[in-house]
């Protein structure tokens, strides 16, 4: 069975709330991020609490811009990288809406959008809240080494983006709509190198990209821009090369969120950004901004995730990767 694509009817992006840290603000896309925090603690005692607060503030920013009140939200979907997606659960513990926790590593946010679209299409309800967050120090601590430990950063390592993104989908027509979605399948290239997840995830992205075009009987020319999640500098090159070998002409209309969020040389972020907030923050700030200016009209966003755990790589298991795609279009 191949990856499945489906058409989404009448789902529009109502409001977006994004909060990032100083590091992302200083990056090349800094001017698109309006809200940012100065330090990683965010006036909390621990980094975990800071991540919860990030998610909470992103949700409140989205709700402030939205036409819905917090009581009107019919379902919330969220996911992050912390153990047992605790940060997402904790972020909505005082609210009264139903909540679904998701885990697809760095693709959690996009998976949330896909499921929200399915939910809205299948039921009579008409809004959904999707949020995701990630924190550099929390993920560093969970997946790698303690923060202050002097582990040598490899060139292929990615830096987790600190930030949170919340968005509200609704059935009431707005400028940007979601038209198609593809749920990807697990691709495992048998790589056990956790310092180079970009290359491993690139093959999952390629698989989802090709199946998405095949299922919808489209070509690259139908899209103005192709966005991948967090392949980083190395994964991006693999993605480009492999697709050019297969005769997909994507050179001039492809960007990678992880590669573009940081200035690789100045900020010393090795291969680029990663984390669930990476693809969400870049797509729903920079790319949405360009779409509103009508620079891009149809954009394919492929979020990738490396689904390994801390134990699995210590036991030398390979990294299974996944990629989910959505299509954003300008509503004319």
């Amino acid at each position, binding site marked *: 069975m191949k990856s499945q694509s489906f058409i989404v009817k009448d789902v529009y992006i109502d409001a977006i709330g994004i909060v990032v840290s100083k590091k992302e603000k200083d990056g090349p896309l800094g001017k698109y991020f309006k809200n940012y925090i100065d330090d990683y603690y965010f006036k909390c005692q*621990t980094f975990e609490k800071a991540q919860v607060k990030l998610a909470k503030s992103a949700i409140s920013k989205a709700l402030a811009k939205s036409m819905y009140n917090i009581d009107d939200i019919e379902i919330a979907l969220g996911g992050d990288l912390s153990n047992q997606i605790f940060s997402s659960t904790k972020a909505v513990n005082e609210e009264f809406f139903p909540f679904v926790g998701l885990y697809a590593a760095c693709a959690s946010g996009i998976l949330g959008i896909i499921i929200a679209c399915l939910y809205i299409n299948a039921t009579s309800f008409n809004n959904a809240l999707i949020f995701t967050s990630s924190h550099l120090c929390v993920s560093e601590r969970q997946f790698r080494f303690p923060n202050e*430990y*002097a582990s040598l950063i490899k060139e292929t390592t990615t830096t987790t983006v600190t930030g949170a993104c919340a968005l509200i989908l609704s059935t009431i027509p707005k400028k940007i709509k979601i038209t198609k979605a593809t749920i990807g399948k697990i691709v495992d290239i048998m790589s056990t190198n956790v310092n180079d997840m970009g*290359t491993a995830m690139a093959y999952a992205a390629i698989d989802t990209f090709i199946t998405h075009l095949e299922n919808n009987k489209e070509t690259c020319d139908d899209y103005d821009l192709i966005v991948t999640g967090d392949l980083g500098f*190395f994964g991006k090159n693999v993605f480009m090369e492999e697709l050019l070998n297969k005769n997909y002409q994507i050179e001039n209309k492809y960007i990678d969120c992880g590669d573009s969020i940081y200035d690789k040389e100045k900020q010393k972020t090795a291969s680029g950004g990663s984390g669930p907030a990476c693809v969400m923050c870049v797509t729903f700030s920079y790319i949405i901004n360009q779409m509103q200016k009508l620079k891009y009209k149809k954009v394919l966003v492929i979020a990738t995730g490396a689904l390994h755990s801390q134990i699995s790589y210590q036991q030398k298991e390979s990294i299974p990767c996944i990629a989910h795609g959505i299509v954003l279009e300008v509503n004319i």
Partner: protein
Amino acid sequence: MYVFLFLYHTIFGDFMILNNQKIKDKVKNNGQEKHKIKNFFLAFLFGGLFGIVGQAIFYIFNLIINLNEDLATILTSIIFVSIAFIMTCFGIFDKFAQIAHAGILIPITGFANSITASALEGKAEGMIYGIGSKMFSLVGSVCTYGIVSAIILGIIYFIVGLF
């Protein structure tokens, strides 16, 4: 036979399971260090520098303050550990290690850094489950195999001493 298989798996395991030659090359090449000679030189330089500084401190204690050799050696180590500890607490150590590489990680400063970093990390979980138990999470293996190799060497020393 099993020993051979085990060794084979640990040495070549990572690369053997890749079936596609092209993907295999790509995964291998991406992880490769490009500035090996530069890093090697920097590590040598900084490692040597710390050696000279250590020796200077040792001479100060031994010749100027007139302490005996054992005490001077211990005090030199303590000074280095303290410096690494303070640097870690202020968040300078890991940035400095990106420049000095093995030059700062292999001496006792690396050991001090891993203990301090783990302890700092455990602070949020409290005194017992946090600082107390997590402090040795990284250096635990160094301690364990240090003791194991000491036992093995002790046995060899004992057997050699019999003849």
